[in-house]
């Protein structure tokens, strides 16, 4: 995947993942399903982006992982937000709000 597109979307992807994990822990597949559903089937996250992002977030210390048993009794790696991650989610949400409002203003301005 060319680096440039990822760069633009990288920050947004992080935000989405953090949001997806906000209320309950989930494994990789679950996160991609959640994002798809919440976005009304618009945003389909590629595995090639999802997993590196998960590992990066873990390296940053915003999520943590744990092996557990999934709904169908399968071994799966579950991710969960850390306190730092919750703070980061708040920060990024605010920043996204600011950014998107500003873009909207520019687009709607006559």
């Amino acid at each position: 995947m060319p680096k440039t597109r990822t760069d633009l979307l990288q920050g947004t992807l992080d935000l989405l993942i953090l949001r997806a994990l906000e209320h309950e822990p989930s494994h990789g597949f679950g996160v991609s399903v959640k994002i798809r559903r919440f976005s009304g089937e618009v945003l389909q996250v590629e595995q090639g982006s999802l997993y590196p992002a998960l590992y990066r977030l873990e390296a940053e210390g915003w999520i943590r992982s744990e092996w557990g048993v999934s709904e169908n009794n399968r071994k799966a790696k579950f991710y969960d937000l850390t306190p730092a991650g919750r703070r980061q989610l708040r920060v990024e949400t605010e920043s996204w709000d600011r950014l998107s409002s500003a873009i909207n203003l520019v687009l709607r301005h006559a």
Partner: protein
Amino acid sequence: MAAEMRHHLDLLAEELVAQGLSPAEAAARARREFGPVDRIREDCREERGFLWLSQLGQDLAYAGRTMARAPGFTIAAVLTLAFGIGVNTGIVSLADQILLRQLPVRDPGGLILLHWGAKADFPVPVGGSWENDPVLRQWTCTSFSRSAFAKFRARDGVLDGLLAFSPVPGLTLVSGGHAETIPLGQLISGDGFSVLGIRPAAGRAIEASDDRPEAAPVAMISYAYWMRRFAGDPAVVGQTILVNRLPLTVIGVAPRNFAGTLQVGDNPDLYFPLALAATLSPRGSDEKENPDKVWWLQIMARLKPGATGRQAEASLEPILEQCARDSLAAVGAASPPGGAGLPRLIVGPGGQGLSEIRHQYAREWEILVGLGGTVLAIACANLANLLLARGVARRREIGVRLAMGAGRGRIARQLFTESSLLAALGGALAIPFALWIEVTLVAMQPKLEGHALALDPHLDGRILLVAMLLSMVTGLVFGSVPALRASRVNINAEFQGGTGARGGVSHSALVRTILVGQVALSLVLLVGAGLFARTLRNLHGVDVGFDRGNLLLFELDPNPAGSDFELAAATNRRMAERLRSLPGVESVTFSKIPLLANQGWNTRLRAVGGSRGAQGKSAAMLNAVGADFFGTYRIPIIRGRGLEERDEGRPSPVAVINQAMAAAYFGEDDPVGRTFEVEDLNDHPTLVEVVGVARDARYSAVRSVSPATIYLPFSASRSMRTAAATFAVRSAGNPTLMSSVVVGAGREVDPLIPMSNLRTEETQIDDLSANERIFAWLSGLFGVLALGLVGIGLYGLLAYSVQRRTGEIGLRMALGACPEAVVAMILRESLLLVAIGLGFGLMGAWVSARAVASLLYGLSATDPAVFLGGAGLLLFIALLAAWLPARRAARIDPIAALRTE
């Protein structure tokens, strides 16, 4: 991670099945949708930050495979490195032991050693060694009187404890009915071991309570002796041994690495409290009556924290002055009114013990380290050349990798890894080389007791690391040159048959520079080898004034210090008689000082009734000899007669003097029948009558001219209190074959008197030039190796050059050049390189030769024959290396060459 992905895949497949696909189709679709698992995993790993580790693993594996595919290169490179690193490590490890090693005591940096120097003559008897201090321009000494020690101790102040010590040579130890000679022991003051701060390996250390006249006599033994003689048996503590017929209790064993505080290489086997000095040491019994009379004790002290040597000097200086005056009074000499001419105290670092010999050896070891450094430079140069050549050969491979998408950084990193692996392998293999050179150097050291440095061949890890680091840096630098150039490689050109007429110009320049450097270094080594080899030959050919062949020598101490001299001397005579009766023995004699053994005994002289000569100006060497001395050593008597039995025990001694003495003191006149006064024979000046003149013979060194020598009858040495002598047995045949017979006969005379230090005169003289031999051998070995490397390197360069220039040569020949011209062209190339190298090399050799000039003998440091010989050898190698490539160049078929272009 794999499990995680699998789980995701399964769920994806389930979802698709739920949408109506068959399981097989679902699985396939899922996998397609998921994407390239491996790349995703790699991206994840990258995010996680451990990517570099797995890449390193890949690099190492690849490096290993490529090296295995080019065994010639790998072996050459690894061996070169191993030799360079190993030799250096070995030499520097040994040099460190001699030059830098501190005493294995608590805080050696806090110890100081006391010296004194005097501008004028100090007429008190002084034992111990003198050293010429170039900074202060005077002779300094480390010996003090017993009362000086007591007074220093009493003065509190900047010192946290003092210790006094002295070596005591030539002891006879009897233990378990078996007698042996202990070459060296050490006297030490009572609390000396606690001032040093060491813990015994067994038993207890000598304490202050042992150092009293009424205390029971005790001794400590060294760890090495404990292992050698008692096999580490702890039961030795508490045993009684007889030393010089004095019963002593062994109270403990010194720690393992501790070898006394004496000169480097002097390792005492026994330690005694100072109180036993009178019984064990001739000096000790000298000063028994008056502790001011003899200066013989070495003194070290520990500074209080924060105190400096200067402060100690200032604090103790007045005490020393007073002690000097007391001593002058004790010997009946005048005391100068001012302070002028009195000994001045000098404080030096004591962390290494006594240091006179170390300073003497420093020179030699610096040269050895220099040799080692040269070898390392040559090894690195060779490695560089090998890597460069290899880099050129791999351009195609690198071109392919670039075409397949590898980043330049990745390729560079991989080449770095290869170089590092090479350096690491070389370093590992260097260890046996290092040990080999250490063992060889130690084996080449002088062998005789008292001369040999007890060196421990072991490796200093730090030095190995530094040498490895150095070669790793070389490997990195020269491994990266092809990498840097490779990353700029024009892929197209490589694939189209990479040897264009202009290919690799700058590479060649680098290789040539390195070769020039190698030539220069080789010349330095060859010149060194030549100079030392000729020095050795010159030394061997010196006429020493006596017949050095077929002489067997040994030491005998018939009666330890303090006992009756006459009885002991009689034992010497009895021994000589017994030995004379042996078959195969031509003659036997004994003398106080063996010839050419680095020992000496000198005295000042006076004209009869005249004034005292200044120190060093009117002086002569002494020797006290037994019957048949001149006959056994074959020193011709030129005038008068030799010494005979009837000359022993005369109240006014007679002497035979040598030609140098005769010329210096009696000029043209016949000295026979004349008299002169000797100052330092007894307590008072002694009148000596000349009965004969002997031909000049060397005294203690082969190099220096025969000094003025006075040969006295053996009884004249009675002032030394010991009748210890060196016997010389002239045999009809090979002297070494006689040794067991001689020893057997000696045992018959008296089994309790051991004969020690059996050797031949030839071996003893050879030992004097051990250093020159080491240098000659080492520089010769390295020089030959360097020569070989230069030859191979030159050959490689020329072969490559010919191959590269095939087209050009073909063109020339097609245009009419004859083969001879082509050959001449190649030869010119080779000779030009070597000539430039010789230019630098001659400069370098000239500088280094001047640096070692003091070690040479019989030739100047800029001896033209040696320089020309070295240069000639290198030119010969240049021609030899050029021969094959030149021949190949001459045989080039112009048509074929032009076709490949």
